[in-house]
């Protein structure tokens, strides 16, 4: 497969994304961006299943509204990765910032390391369209807030205690799996705790193996440790807020 290489050094984001789009539309299936340095919205307007390899540090909103491509970031990512993403895959060989995958609707996001605050919030899901997020390290507060769907996996491989509080506040759909244990005080009031069932374990095996392939980790060893499952206790978490 031919690789179309673009040197992003000193290129404005608008010009860079226009060049990437032109390359994709010219039929290139693999595009390599070198010397990326803070350019935003990479992958946003591409609607083809192209592979984009990003070397350097991309800017905010990587893959925002993205529909189809696979973006692999060889480095850390910033805030807003996968914002309202519709389909495709983003793989980050490093950590990512705040608001990762807000309102994500479909596709997959794999982050090797940690993520910041307000990640995996407002995830959507309908029918067979289910967004999946796998995070290798930890996450911060409001993780999974207002989730309406999706599957989120937090592996905690950084060896640190999970920092997030208010996990899953307002959750009314979807599930979060956390490897190891989680202090109930860290959970939102609307979240229930359970053991993963058989179908959950099959799902975890599949996505953890994918994580292992992306980041050269022994998935079997990661899966050896137990997971807890966080689920929405109520279909209408705020149903009793109002006078009837």
């Amino acid at each position, binding site marked *: 497969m031919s690789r179309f290489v673009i040197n992003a050094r000193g290129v404005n984001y608008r010009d860079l994304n226009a060049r990437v789009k032109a390359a994709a539309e010219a039929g290139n299936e693999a595009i390599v961006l070198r010397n990326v340095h803070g350019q935003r919205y990479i992958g*946003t307007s591409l609607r083809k299943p192209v592979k984009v390899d990003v070397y350097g540090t991309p800017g905010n909103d990587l893959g925002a*509204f993205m529909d189809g491509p696979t973006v692999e970031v060889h480095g850390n990512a910033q805030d*807003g990765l996968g914002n309202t993403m519709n389909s495709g895959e983003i793989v980050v060989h490093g950590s990512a910032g705040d608001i990762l995958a807000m309102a994500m609707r479909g596709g997959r996001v794999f982050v090797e390391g940690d993520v910041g605050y307000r990640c995996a919030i407002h995830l959507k899901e*309908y029918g067979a369209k289910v967004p999946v997020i796998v995070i290798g390290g930890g996450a911060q507060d409001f993780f999974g807030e*207002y989730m*309406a769907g999706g599957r989120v996996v937090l592996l905690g491989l950084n060896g640190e205690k999970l920092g997030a509080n208010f996990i899953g506040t307002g959750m009314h759909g979807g599930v979060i799996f956390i490897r190891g244990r989680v202090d109930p005080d860290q959970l939102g009031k609307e979240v229930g705790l359970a053991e993963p069932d058989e179908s959950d374990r099959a799902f975890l095996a599949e996505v953890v193996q994918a994580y292992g392939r992306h980041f050269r980790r022994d998935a079997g060893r990661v899966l050896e440790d137990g997971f807890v499952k966080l689920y929405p206790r109520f*279909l209408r978490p705020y149903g009793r807020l109002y006078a009837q």
Partner: protein
Amino acid sequence: MPHFAPAQFTVERRDTRCIRCRVCVNQCSFEVHYYDAESDEVRSRDERCVGCHRCEALCPTQALAVRFNPMEIRPNANWRPEHIRDLQRQAETGGVLLTGAGNDKPFRVYWDHLLLNASQVTNPSIDPLREPMELRTILGRKPDRLDFDDLKGDLMTELDAQVTVETPIIFSGMSYGAISYNAHLALNQAAREFGTLYNTGEGGWPVEFRRFGDHTIAQCASGRFGIDLDYLESAAVIEIKIGQGAKPGIGGHLPAEKVTPPVAATRMIPAGTDALSPAPQHDIYSIEDLAMLINALKEATGYAKPVGVKIAAVHNAPAIASGAVRAGADIVAIDGLRGGTGAAPKVVRDNVGLPIELALAAVHDRLVKEGIRNRASILAAGGIRSSADVVKAIALGADAVYIGTAALVAMGCTLCQMCYTGKCNWGIAVTDPWLTKRVNPDIATRHLLNLLRAWNLEIKEMLGGMGINALESLRGNRLQLRGVGLEEWELKVLGVRGAGA
């Protein structure tokens, strides 16, 4: 523990006229009417009546009259019946009181204190029946300056994306879920046929309506419902909804009663849950973040369409609007205190925000003073009731206005304010298939078209009277307005002289 709170409405039934056809029984989703077979009588449970007058309108023999039934307690200017009733409901439920539609409190309606000018003798008025009147309005960013090729005279300046409407009246955002499929279809059809714009609201946009895309504003709000590239690309304009005049600063919960499977599919949430829109958009905590989303939307759609920002009219609206324009907004919509809603806490609807007239004048002045008024169009929203309100809004500085409630009234709404219950008897603010059938989309489309036509004709009459033949000449032209019964500070904010001055 008994309390005194009489039914808000009483149903008067003239038994001699009643033919026991039971239309009222079948029409009322609040189950006010029932048929008693034993006595062969139709009776009513007045305490359930919300005063929507559906039964009265459909009774084939005019046997019904629904009357307001005020609480006849000792008159008290402070503790009014509304307070007593609300206190009782809250004591019983411990919940937030919800309501629908716009603020119904007697705050000053400035439109009613502004009078328009007309020409006499020296600057003759124009007969709109004889001469062309220009109502066409172009929305979007206008350039700071124009450069032309010196030799050929060609325009050298690259223009930003703009959109043209044939009237300064645009349908306001009302979500699919808040109002019905048929209501959306009617608004979408009418906008296309008249050459104006329909706004999807924040609940997504049924895919089969995308054929009306050239006449659609697609909204991107805090719940991010139904937003993908198809949605964004199909529309003519994208609007980031930051706030709503009926409930500034708070989000929204579309009650589960209205989240039917088609609504859930459009929003990509589970059916039977409340659709939750949080107060802020969690990727926007600053003007810089707003700029980031504006540019993300422009990147996603190839810079081919204007991106607007809708804010509620709040105390520092001028500074916020200025920030939005500097962040790249091509259109700024300001939604005032009296803007409608499908559901809002009553306490917020009735106590938060600013009248649109004051906010509009202040925002326009601020943008003019900063020399950036050309960079964004201003849409005024929130309680536009007539063509006169439209003309006054434009004279205060708006490029165009949004109408929401007025459009609903054109489709049958009687402002009973029960939009949040999912029981709208007029088939508008409801998703129950049995009730939504009550809006015939083609008849509703015709009513909307009639409304736009009538207002357009009236606007032309008023413009002609002022000796103006293009709406553009009225924009921000406050000399055409005079205030009556206003305080000095109000005249100052509005930038108009008092009548006679």
